[in-house]
């Protein structure tokens, strides 16, 4: 075998692994119970037999060519997973993709990242990384490969032993039920926590309000936004042959929603005898401009800068209070609590994501080991 052909042979090996893993997963859908284990074992044995027949050996899993082939193969599937909307019901794919839907579903393109064969390939990558790291007596090399293997192992532990869910906490109501999230889907069951949570206080800090002028253009039946600007900075908007000038912006904006904001504008069109001057009030319906091709809207923007919940964790008689903010989770027992969202109006709530993840420390350790290996390799080259 010539060296230049080696990567293509490695690609053949990866393809064979994919076929075996995909076959095992498909059998799992068709054959139930212990019989599946037997059929899966037969499929694996057939795969190994075929690999040996094609001249592959166990050592081929430890070559750089195998690594490169696996990376390219995984890349293609990951890219495919970004082209197809993930995690919907089969009916969605049948209506959207027609005759292509069945093969797509058979190949798990509706849930690529959670497909058994995809995880199997990642597991094979992990095995290969561990094996490779003991082949070369170079510490940076080992650190890099073992680091990535640890990241993959951490992911597996997170998957098997982790819990992730969501709580919609209402003010002053004791709650302990978690809506579980599995494989990216919310509502995959419920879990009762061994303690309860009460939302004692919720705070939203907003940015000072600022005006935003939005211009819409008619495209067929609907209007499409073509521009959003701050009218205090952008004083002229071109709209085909016409132009819109901002004459004045009343900047008396209150922090709580910008009531009272108005803008005075002038529409100038060639051929028109005089320019049309008009006043636009903030947060009202968009105004259709003469000619009917453009519409204009003035809004006040005051998005949240920070939001936080004061939570009371209670187990038996013991109570602990803590503030949970975005980017600042709080730990209680083996769980961590993240500020994820909120709702206002008639149904105020604080959205808290709850997570118990024994895999994350392994992932973090793997990342540190990997980066340390990369830097060590760089420094060693320089020296």
């Amino acid at each position, binding site marked *: 075998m010539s060296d230049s052909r080696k990567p293509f042979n490695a690609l053949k090996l990866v393809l064979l692994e994919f076929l075996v893993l995909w076959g095992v997963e498909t059998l799992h859908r068709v054959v139930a119970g212990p019989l599946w284990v037997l059929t899966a074992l037969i499929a694996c044995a057939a795969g190994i037999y075929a690999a040996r027949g094609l001249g592959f050996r166990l050592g081929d899993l430890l070559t750089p060519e195998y690594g490169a082939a696996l990376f390219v193969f995984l890349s293609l599937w990951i890219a495919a997973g970004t082209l197809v909307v993930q995690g919907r019901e089969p009916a969605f794919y049948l209506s959207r993709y027609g005759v292509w839907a069945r093969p797509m579903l058979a190949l798990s393109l509706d849930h690529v990242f959670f497909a058994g064969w995809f995880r199997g390939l990642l597991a094979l990558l992990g095995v290969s990384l561990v094996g490779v790291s003991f082949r070369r007596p170079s510490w940076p090399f080992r650190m890099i490969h073992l680091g990535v293997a640890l990241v993959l192992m951490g992911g597996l532990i997170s998957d098997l032993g982790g819990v992730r869910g969501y709580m919609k906490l209402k003010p002053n109501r004791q709650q302990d039920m978690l809506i579980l999230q599995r494989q990216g889907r919310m509502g995959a069951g419920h879990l009762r926590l061994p303690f309860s949570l009460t939302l004692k206080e919720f705070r939203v800090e907003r940015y000072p309000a600022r005006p935003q002028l939005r211009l819409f253009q008619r495209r067929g039946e609907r209007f499409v936004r073509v521009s959003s600007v701050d009218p205090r900075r952008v004083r002229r908007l071109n709209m085909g042959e016409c132009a819109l000038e901002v004459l004045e912006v009343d900047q008396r904006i209150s922090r709580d929603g910008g009531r009272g904001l108005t803008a005075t504008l002038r529409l100038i069109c060639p051929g028109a005898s005089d320019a049309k001057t008009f006043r636009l009030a903030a947060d009202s319906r968009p105004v259709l401009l003469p000619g009917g091709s453009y519409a204009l809207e003035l809004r006040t923007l005051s998005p949240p800068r920070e939001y936080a919940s004061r939570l009371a964790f209670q187990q038996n008689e013991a109570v602990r209070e803590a503030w949970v903010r975005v980017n600042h989770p709080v730990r209680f027992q083996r769980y961590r609590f*993240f500020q994820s969202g909120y709702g206002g109006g008639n149904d105020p709530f604080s959205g808290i994501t709850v997570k118990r993840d024994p895999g994350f420390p392994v992932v973090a350790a793997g990342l540190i080991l990997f980066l340390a290996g990369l830097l060590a390799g760089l420094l060693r080259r320089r020296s």
Partner: protein
Amino acid sequence: MIHWQAHSVFFFVALGGYAISGLVYLLSQRQVPSRSGEWILALALAANTAQIVSAWIRLGQPPFQTLYQSLVFFAWAVAGVYFSARLLVALRRGGGAAAVCAFGALVFALVKADPNAGMLPPALRSPWFVPHVLAYFIGYGALFFSFTLGLTFLASPGMRRRAGAGELLSLMDKTIRFGFLLISIGLAIGLLWAETAWAAYWSWDPKENWALVTWLVYLAYLHLRNRPRWQGRSAAWLAVAGFLAVLFTYLGVNYLPTIAGALHAYQ
């Protein structure tokens, strides 16, 4: 729609500087760096730096939030990496490509409204934000040079037989290794930050996935670069493919059908 008044004077100085510098480089037609082209490029980089610093001060936050702001920073990263490489690894070519790329990024930025966004959402208000963006964009800048070097190698017939081919490929390799280190740091920081902000270090989000695809393509290059018969054209092709993946990760992802509701999307 272009809103000329929305951009600062530094923006136009940088835009004009990159355009003139690119023209001077193209017209000089020499192997050695064009001295006047270099000076104009340095001036454009200074204006670009001033624009980023002034926006940072005016907004009171790092100006890396919107696509406009990131394009301005991308132009800075490409020109900045060029001058760093000139000093550190004696890069003797690529000035013209840097000027053209930075000019292209600023032209694209010109048509993007909202250069004055200054309201970071709570999730972005994190100490991880600046190092994450810095690592990625400086990495992208380095990988842009590997792309131009790869293209130069592929576009020059008989390059393999020329004396400078080895030097070109070695430089391409160095820029890829440096860029890979930085995008790896960016990826690792992103994982740790996502765990803190979204309670998930990996969400299989389109942007994350394409960042992983990019990383895997360069990883394939690093695994094959020392293999026999994979050091010339094949390596150059991988360098080109890698940067196309970078471009898709940066800009193309916004047009994917799966981007709606994704965690990473430019405003």
